């Protein structure tokens, strides 16, 4: 290493440096050379990781894990919780890198893609061998976990439905009884008694109600009906509870590729809905960015909103307002509420699939679901635990049967399962924003329907 190296040697030193750098590069190459999904292993014991996103449910599941470990001392369950947005990104990179959790909470809108790419395990054999009784789950929830290939990719952990939350004080002032609120009717032409109710619940800044003379729709103190957003492809909590009462459905069957956003029934329903903005009974879409729906409700900006049963506990904690719940209105073809179910799936890359199955089996058993029921956040999927969940959730003071009765009465329809869900949600999200925002008529959705179907070609 002479310090007075002649100039012609300089490049060679440089070359040596480059060689070192390319050695480092070679390291990265090896990591990326393999494609396809690692098939994992069938280990029966050891530590398995379990991911979930709802921090409110963490204590209940931690209890399940403790109980499970007591019964299966050779399996240790480590629970990790990440917020909803991070959850899917992290899960995705986990799949890419082969470091996904052994078991994770899965969503019906996501598992189809995972299954199609071979990232999660079909569970049919294990279910058959273990004698698991699928009839014990709330109707509809177990079926949701059958993928596009007809195989089962998850066991249901809970179920949810959509109902109405309203400000009880405002309803009383408006002369609306709980019985009336539970028996509202709706149709796409004049909105039925539902529209009458929200018109009456709407109050402008001078204290004039929406159905009274002198109502100033440009200056609203309380909107009768709250708006969260335009609802993307399925409007789960936003509009599915009325659009589906006309007999319409966005897609005919699970994993279908024919869509019906061009159906006049749907477009008429949406036209009625966006008309509420013009009438001043519902806020324009532009006002809905910022605070969340429950905050607006709590601040008295909205008298009534529609939302899912998973938010009962959250909403019941809102101080300063007296809340009540009611069933969604009855439409031309009866009452319809969307049910969805979360499930537990096993990653293909898991090295401990035996142990993972034991845990999934336990999560789907009455023992764990009873703990979850008493956790007072969600309704577990096993029908026999529903009374316990209703009892716990009723301590919030809300009559949560508004969410469970429709199941018993057969008034539910399943969350639509489709492939290419994120692409379609994205297309429909933009299109529905245009319609609800007033930049395009509902008839524009006919052309959008073509674009949605084109995704599958």
């Amino acid at each position: 290493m002479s310090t007075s190296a002649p100039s012609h040697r300089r490049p060679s030193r440089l070359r040596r440096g480059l060689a070192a750098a390319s050695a480092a590069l070679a390291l990265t190459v090896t990591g990326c050379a393999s494609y396809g999904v690692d098939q994992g292993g069938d280990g029966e014991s050891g530590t398995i990781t379990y991911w979930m996103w709802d921090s409110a449910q963490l204590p209940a599941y931690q209890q399940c894990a403790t109980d499970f470990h007591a019964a299966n001392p050779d399996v240790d369950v480590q629970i990790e919780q990440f917020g909803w947005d991070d959850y899917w990104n992290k899960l995705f990179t986990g799949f890419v890198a082969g470091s996904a959790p052994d078991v994770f909470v899965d969503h019906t809108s996501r598992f189809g893609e995972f299954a199609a790419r071979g990232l999660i395990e079909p569970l049919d054999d294990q279910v058959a061998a273990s004698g698991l009784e699928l009839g014990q789950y709330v109707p509809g929830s177990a079926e949701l976990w059958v993928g596009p290939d007809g195989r089962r990719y998850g066991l249901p952990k809970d179920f949810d439905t959509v109902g109405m939350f309203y400000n009880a004080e405002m309803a009383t002032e408006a002369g609306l009884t709980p019985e009336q609120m539970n028996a509202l009717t709706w149709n796409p032409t004049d909105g039925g008694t539902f529209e009458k109710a929200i018109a009456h619940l709407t109050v402008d800044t001078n204290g004039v109600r929406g159905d009274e003379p002198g109502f100033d729709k440009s200056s609203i103190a309380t909107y009768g009906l709250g708006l969260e957003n335009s609802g993307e492809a399925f409007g789960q909590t936003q509009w599915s509870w009325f659009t589906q009462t006309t007999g319409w459905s966005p897609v005919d069957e699970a994993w279908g590729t024919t869509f019906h956003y061009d159906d006049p029934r749907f477009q008429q329903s949406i036209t009625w809905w966006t008309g509420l903005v013009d009438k001043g009974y519902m806020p324009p879409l532009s006002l809905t960015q910022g605070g969340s729906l429950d905050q607006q409700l709590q601040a008295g900006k909205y008298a009534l909103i529609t939302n899912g049963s998973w938010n009962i506990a959250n909403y019941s904690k809102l101080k300063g307002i007296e809340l009540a719940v009611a069933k969604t209105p009855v439409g031309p073809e009866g009452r319809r509420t969307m049910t969805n179910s979360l499930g537990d799936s096993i990653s293909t890359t898991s090295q401990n699939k035996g142990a993972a199955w034991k845990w999934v089996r336990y999560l789907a058993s009455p023992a764990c679901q009873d703990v979850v029921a008493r956790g007072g956040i969600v309704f577990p999927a096993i029908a026999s635990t529903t009374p316990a969940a209703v009892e716990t959730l009723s301590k919030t003071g809300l009559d949560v049967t508004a969410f469970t009765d429709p199941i018993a009465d057969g008034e539910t329809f399943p969350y639509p399962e489709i492939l290419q869900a994120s692409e379609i949600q994205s297309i429909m999200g933009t299109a529905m924003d245009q319609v609800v925002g007033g930049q395009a008529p509902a008839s524009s959705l006919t052309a959008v329907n073509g674009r949605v179907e084109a995704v599958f070609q």
Partner: protein
Amino acid sequence: MSVQTPVEPAAAGPTRATAAPVQKAPKDRRAGIGRVVAWATLVLIMLVTLFPFYWMLRTALSNGTQLATDPSSPLPVGFTFGAFERVLGLSTTAEAQAQGGSGAAIDFWLYLLNSLLVATLITAGQVFFGAMAAYAFARLRWPGRDLVFFVFLTALMVPPIFTQLPNFLLMRDLGLLNTYAAIVLPFFFMTPFAVFFLRQFFLGIPREVEEAAVLDGAGTVRRFFRVIAPMASGPLITLAILQYIQAWNEYFWPLLVASDRSVRVLTVGLGVFRSQTPQGTPDWAGLMAATLLAALPIVVLFAVFSRRIVDSIGFSGIK
């Protein structure tokens, strides 16, 4: 005047001494009005800057479940230290949930320690190696220098989406997932910003300074460490602080490569306050309390070092 004398302490005194009277010198009316306008602008900027912080504090001291009952109240709604207790892990699950928290436990002090360690390592490596590279680009003559510099510079423009996934896979293959090394390495040897930043400052240092050192017989390494680095201590500290803050706030990368509790950094640990149930409200009070607490160490750090930035920059007046 030998260049090797440590510059800062000697220089600090005279500069400030000369600066002070100069500022008060112009006494004419026009300058007076100018000063009033200048101060008014500054105060306005400070108000705009500070108000959101006040709002954070007000929210952090509120009861999360009552917040929206009085959204425009200038004072905390349902005053409580509950949110801070939640962040520091001092409240029970039931207490936390009653105030709109999730009840998820976080190990604040461990995450704080992890953040301190990681941010310190990143800053030290980056400033040191960045300064060396910047010196080579600004001061040394070698073939292809400008080309290599431009190539380095393009790294600023590489969309993170390109780098994150391969780097993640690299960490996995090196067996570094869930280690401090995984969080630190991609930022340790260089960031384009650090190299670019320091190069621009080194360009500004008069060449004569180095020429003199050469006459004294100093080699490249010695010139860098004894002449250039001390003279650039202002920019170096500035960069160090900025990069420390950056490293401190880094979220997605540590979340990806090191979410294990033992190495979890503060930003990742506090993510629990940000998003809870989909469609639910975040724990606003908890989130704000967490943010304020997490920012506190760097506020202190900045307060301590920002005086040094002024003092150490004195060299500019005497060359």
